[in-house]
Each structure stands twice: as C-alpha cells, then as structure tokens.
C-alpha cells in the first residue's frame, strides 16, 4: 500500500509540476534558459589583443622595435604611442587602454653601456584578466627584445650562438594547462556554475510548490507520499542535470565527458539532496512566492564559497566547514572532477557520500516534521491510498 502511495505521489507530483506554470518555468525551463544565458558573455573564451599604450621617451631604434614587437604580440594591441605619461593615464581612466609600458629616455644608451634599463609596465590591477594579459604580453615582448640584445652581445664576445641562447635562461619553465587546455574563461566558470543553476532553480521551484501545498493545507503527508514527491522532484532534477552534462557542455564545447557513468551517479545523489533541501525550505516558509524572496541572493555567496573561483584554503576555517551545508559545494567538487577532469568514482566518494547522507538525513527530518497530524482526523492531509 505504501508502495502504491509512493508511485501515485510520484505521478501526481510530476503532473502537478507540469500544470503549475510557476513551478514548470522554474524547474524545467529556467535551467535550459540559463544554460544559454550564462555562458553568453564568455562566448569568446579568451582575451586577445588588449589595447595598451607605449609611452616612448627614448625615440630610438630600440624603442621602435619594442612598439613593433608589442603590436605583433597576440596579447596586446598598441592603441597609442605617446611621449607623455599623463595622456596614457587619462586614456586608462577613459577605458581606452588597459595598461602601458614606459620606455625611459636613454633606454637604448643604457642598454648599450650595460647599465640597468628597466621598462616599467603599468597595468590596471582592478581587472584581473586585463592585468594578467598586459603583464604576460609585455613580459614576453621585452623578454624577446632583451634576449636579442643579449645574444648579440654574447656572440660579439665570442660565445657560440646556441650556448649564448641557453645560458640566458638556465631554468626554463613550461606551463601545461590540464583539464582546460585552452585556458578558456567560460570553460572554467560555466561547468561549475551549472551545478549552482541546477540547485537554485530546482530548490526554489520545489519550495514554491511546497509553499502552495502548505497554503492549501495539503503539505503534510506520510513518509511514503513524501518519498514519491521527492522522487518526482529528483526526476526533474535529473532531467536538468542531463541537459547540462549531456547537451549544454557539448554545445558550448567545454571540457566534458571525463567519466559519464560517474557523472550519472553524481546526479543520482545530487538531485535528491537538492530536492529534499527545497522541500524543507518550502515547508518552513509555507508561502508560494517567499522562496524566491529569501533564496535569490544566495547564489552569489554560494558560488564563491564552493571553492572553484576562490581557493578553499583562503577561506576562514569556519567557512571551510560551513560551506558543505549547500549541496552545490559537494556537487561542484564532484562534477568538476568527474566531468572535466575524468577522475575515477573513488576519488569523489567523499563528496558523493556527503550528498547521499544529506538526502537521507534531510528526508528523515522532512518526513517526520511534515508527517500527518492526527492521521485520519484532519481534513486536507494527503494519506497513502
């Protein structure tokens, strides 16, 4: 009988979810919409040819060589060559350039005499990506020009060309980007944010539905009915998860598919955990719209607590523990490692068991808290068939 009640509740809940415009929009359509909306600004993935200025006080063949090399760099575009540092600064305020290099008077003469010849690169530290691109670009350009000068000097001193080249930089570092080989920005942000979108839309949609039931006095129900409801919510969550893992990651060409079976196991733990969380929120609020009011803003702190954008090691120790309250923390951790890094299931066992435990403990609390009051006497309570 309990099994029949569970199956009926599953069917009824799914039917209600499809009938209720608000819940349908939030639970089914919103994840698909955000799957296109959120990656939109990052479509170009990498920053190229950032506009910069060169303040040339030297006016020598060397300074002109630096300008040429800078303009040829894939990171930089020389938007301005000026003899006045103040005008470069003004251009930076206006947002016309994002950094500049200052070539001092007597740069070439100092180089030829072997005196220190620093080139000061000023960047806009308020924008991390610009800062990085301008620094990397100018460092490479000046390094190349500098190497040319030095190799010429060394060969002039009689060293062989090969030795002169190797001796310049005895320790060479080559960087290999793993798991996100193009270093794309969207490839880094969206796969993690996808789990937050899935959590927030499902959670608020469920809380909305539960709030509606509470208003109608049919929220309380036996455990078997609650099981059917949670399974129905999880079915919807599973659908959204498959849309992201199977379709949107592929459509946007993000790193994906590292461990598809593992990702499926993750969804089977993640969707129930989020569903239970949504039902608990709705049972507490008992109001159809209030879940949106109290939960919308949480996306922002949740994103930066989850550890993909800001290193966990730098969070205060208390927050390092508290952040696990949100299913998305374990979800993102497991999803990045399964989908993007292709880790074996055993490596994410911790996160997956945490999600499973969350779902089970949350369900137990929910079924007990929202059990029928005085079974059989109160009108409006849903009883197992």
């Amino acid at each position, binding site marked *: 009988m309990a099994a029949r009640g569970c199956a009926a509740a599953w069917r009824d809940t799914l039917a209600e979810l499809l009938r209720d415009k608000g819940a349908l929009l939030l639970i089914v359509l919103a994840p698909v919409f955000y799957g296109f909306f959120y990656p939109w600004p990052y479509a170009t993935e990498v920053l190229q040819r950032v506009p910069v200025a060169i303040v040339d006080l030297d006016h020598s063949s060397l300074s002109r060589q630096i300008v040429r090399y800078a303009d040829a760099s894939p990171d930089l575009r020389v938007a301005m060559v000026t003899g006045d540092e103040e005008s470069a600064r003004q251009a930076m305020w206006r947002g016309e350039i994002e950094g500049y290099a200052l070539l001092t008077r007597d740069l070439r003469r100092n180089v030829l005499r072997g005196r220190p010849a620093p080139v000061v690169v000023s960047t806009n530290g308020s924008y991390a990506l610009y800062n990085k691109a301008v620094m990397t670009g100018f460092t490479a350009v000046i390094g190349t020009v500098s190497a040319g000068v030095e190799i010429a000097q060394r060969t002039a001193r009689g060293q062989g060309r090969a030795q002169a080249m190797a001796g310049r930089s005895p320790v060479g570092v080559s960087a290999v980007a793993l798991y996100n080989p193009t270093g794309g920005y969207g490839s880094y942000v969206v796969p993690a944010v996808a789990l937050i979108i899935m959590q927030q839309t499902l959670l608020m949609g469920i809380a909305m539905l539960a709030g509606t039931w509470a208003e109608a006095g049919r929220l309380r129900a036996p455990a078997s009915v609650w099981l059917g409801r949670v399974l129905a919510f999880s079915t919807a969550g599973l659908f959204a998860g498959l849309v992201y893992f199977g379709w949107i990651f592929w459509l946007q060409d993000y790193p994906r598919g590292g461990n598809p079976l593992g990702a499926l196991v993750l969804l089977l733990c993640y969707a129930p955990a989020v569903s239970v969380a949504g039902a608990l929120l709705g049972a507490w609020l008992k109001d159809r719209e209030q879940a949106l009011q109290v939960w919308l803003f949480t996306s922002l702190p949740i994103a930066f607590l989850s550890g993909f954008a*800001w290193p966990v090691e*730098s969070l205060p120790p208390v927050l390092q523990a508290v952040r696990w309250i949100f299913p998305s923390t374990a979800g993102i951790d497991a999803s990045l490692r399964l989908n993007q890094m292709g880790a074996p299931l055993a490596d994410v066992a911790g996160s997956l068991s945490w999600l499973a435990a969350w779902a089970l403990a949350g369900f137990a609390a929910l079924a007990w808290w929202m059990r029928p009051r005085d079974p059989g006497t109160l009108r409006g309570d849903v009883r197992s068939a």
Partner: protein
Amino acid sequence: MSAAAGPSPHTGGKSAKREVPSGVFRRAAGREAAWLRRHPRELAMISWVPLLAVLLLWWMFSAGIPTRLPIAIVDDDHSALSRQLARMLEAAPGLRIARRDASLAEARAGMERGDIYAVVAIERDFSRDIKRGASGHVTLYHNAQFYTVSGLVLRDVQTVAMTLSAGVEMAARIRRGEPAQAVAVSSEPIRPSSLALFNPSLNYEQFLAAALIPALLHILGMTAGAWAVGREIRDRTVGAWLAAATGAGTDPAGGVCIAAGPALAALAGKLAWPWAGLSAVGLAALLWLTWGRGWHPPGSLPWVAVALAAFIALSITMGAVAALATRSLRTALSLAGVVTAPAFAFSGMGFPLAAMPAGARAWALALPYTHYIRLQVEQLQMGAPLGHSLPTFVLMPVGAVLLALAAAWLLRGVAAEPARWGGR
C-alpha cells in the same frame, strides 16, 4: 495634487480633505512599518539578513591574497640544485608543497583527488644540463579548471624559476671571470618591472569583495522592490494600501482611482523602508571595507556612497516596476533573478566587456550594475577625476526617478483594475 479628485462614490470623511504628498508619504510609510513589525521575516530581508550576507562576503575574502596553495613536486633529478628549487618553492608565500611524488601519474591522481592545484616536475638531467651550460627544464602542470588559483601558482613558480636562473647565471659568469659588479648589472639587458597602477597588491578583498557587495545589494534591492509592491497585488490589498495612504475611496469592486502624484508618494512611502535598510547596510560595508580596513581609496568615497544609495534606489524601483508591469509577484521575482543574479557575470569585472560578443555586451551595458561598478572602480581604485565618473553619477539617480515615475503611472492602472489582482 488632489487625491480626492478621482471619482470615488464611497469616500469616507477622511478622504474629503485635500491631500499633500508628504502626508501621503507619511501614511504609506506608517502602514508599511506596521506591516514589517508584524512580519519579522520580511523585515529581516531588508535589515539583518543583508547585513549578515554582506559580512559573509567580506569575511570570505578577508585573507586578501591567497597564500600557501598546495602543489606537488616530482623530482626526477635528485640533485642539490633540484632540492634548492624545491626549497625556494616552499619558501614562496603563495605556495606550499603538499606532496612529493615519485611519478607524474601519482601526482596527477593527487590532483584528481583535489589534494593539489599543480605539479612541478623537475626533469632527470635538470642539474647536469644546467652545469653543461644548456637549459634545465621544469614543467608546471596546473589545473586550469581552477582559473584564479592556476594564475597565482603560475606566477609564483615563474618568479622562483627566474630567481634561480639569475643565481645560476651569475655564478656561471663569475666562474668565467667576469667582475661580480658587471654581472649583477647586465644579467638582463632590459628588465620589465611590473607595476599594477591600481590595486597594486592585487588584493582580492578590495577587488572582489568590494565588487560583490553592491552586486548582492542589487539582487536584494530588486527583490525587495518586487516583494513590497507585488505582495499587495497578490494579496489584493492594493486598494487598502492606497486608500490608507491617500485617503481615496474605493469603488464597489475594490479599485482605487488616484492621480499620479499621490500614487508616487504612496509608492515612495512604501519603498522608503527597503531603501533605508539596504542603503544603511551598503554604506556600513563601504566604510568598513575602506576606512575600517585601513584602505584609503584615491578617489572620492563620499561620492561613491551617494552613487551606491542611488543605485540601491534604482534596484528597488526596478523591482516595483517589474511587479506592476507583470501584475504578478512570482513573475516579478523571477525577473529579479534573471536581471540581477547574473549581473556580476555580465559586468566586466570577471571577463572584460570588450571581449564579450556584441549582443552580450549590449545586454551588459543595459544593466545598471555594469555602470555602477565601473564608477566604483574608477573612484575607489583608479583614482580617476570625478569628471570621468560624472555621467554615471547623473544617470543613476535620474534612472531611479524615471523608473519611479513609470511605477507611479503603472500603479494608477493596476489600482483601477481590481479584477486583475491576486495573480499567483
């Protein structure tokens, strides 16, 4: 400005006298205050919840600059020089050697388990190659799925390699008999020295926390505006609200016919509470992040505070307009989610505006947060003259006023059509 001008057959005695807008404002504010006192959860959403959320954001980034990020080292060379490199990596403030692995496969497994962000692999003949005068190779495998961390680790490893390089080269030149002084000077003919003009230490507390707090208040503001007005439509209490505020009577169906002036005053009285609450939180956060944390921004802090208060007013009126235009609390809150929650992603603070596709950039430029945050960066970090930020200073309050006028105009229509209240 006569509230009683409308045709109101059921006017009570109170509504017969002419209303002044300040009286309407006061009564609307009084009615909203009484409601908030009776509904602590709603009061919480414009007072202590925003305060705690803002505190949480600051606390998250209070470390400022990430340090001691765990990496692994795979040393196939086992030489004095490779051990020196490991010691230098360990000494770099940004890094911590969490694992020493025998093989790359082992280290990568550690990365997949999440123990480390990067692996520094030192090749077998590292030391011999360097002694021969060739280049010794070090490979840094970094987890590019963690973009910020990858960048920080890469920078630190490169700095360590450059330091070691310089040391090795100087030693070699001195061995060759070049005078020590000449060696020190000419080891690199042209040396780039970096200078981040604004936010020189690349402090994330000043960069991310300062940007995320207004983004959070933006979400809370539009939500609060949508809630305060949309709730009255949902609960079919628009008539009661406007009647209490303006003294206008209701027609038999419950509708109210009022002029735009009293409608504006009734809206302002209601929305004054979320504006006061969120602005107080925003101001406190601004002062704490700057003076409270010993950061003295180069631009004008008072003007940023004014702009922030105007930006919050704009966010709240956006919510009110959404509720009145859709006549649905649920839809208005969903719109608040679509417009404000991804505003940070579109703002250019993470991925620059110039690199976005044209459509996304157009959307970003239509969002008020994009403009507010540029102003804040100009004033708090870049120290730009006020003139550079002037357009935004003007547009922010003008936008809020225009939206408030639009809301008042919409409210007149909504008030007159009680049949369309109560939508869920």
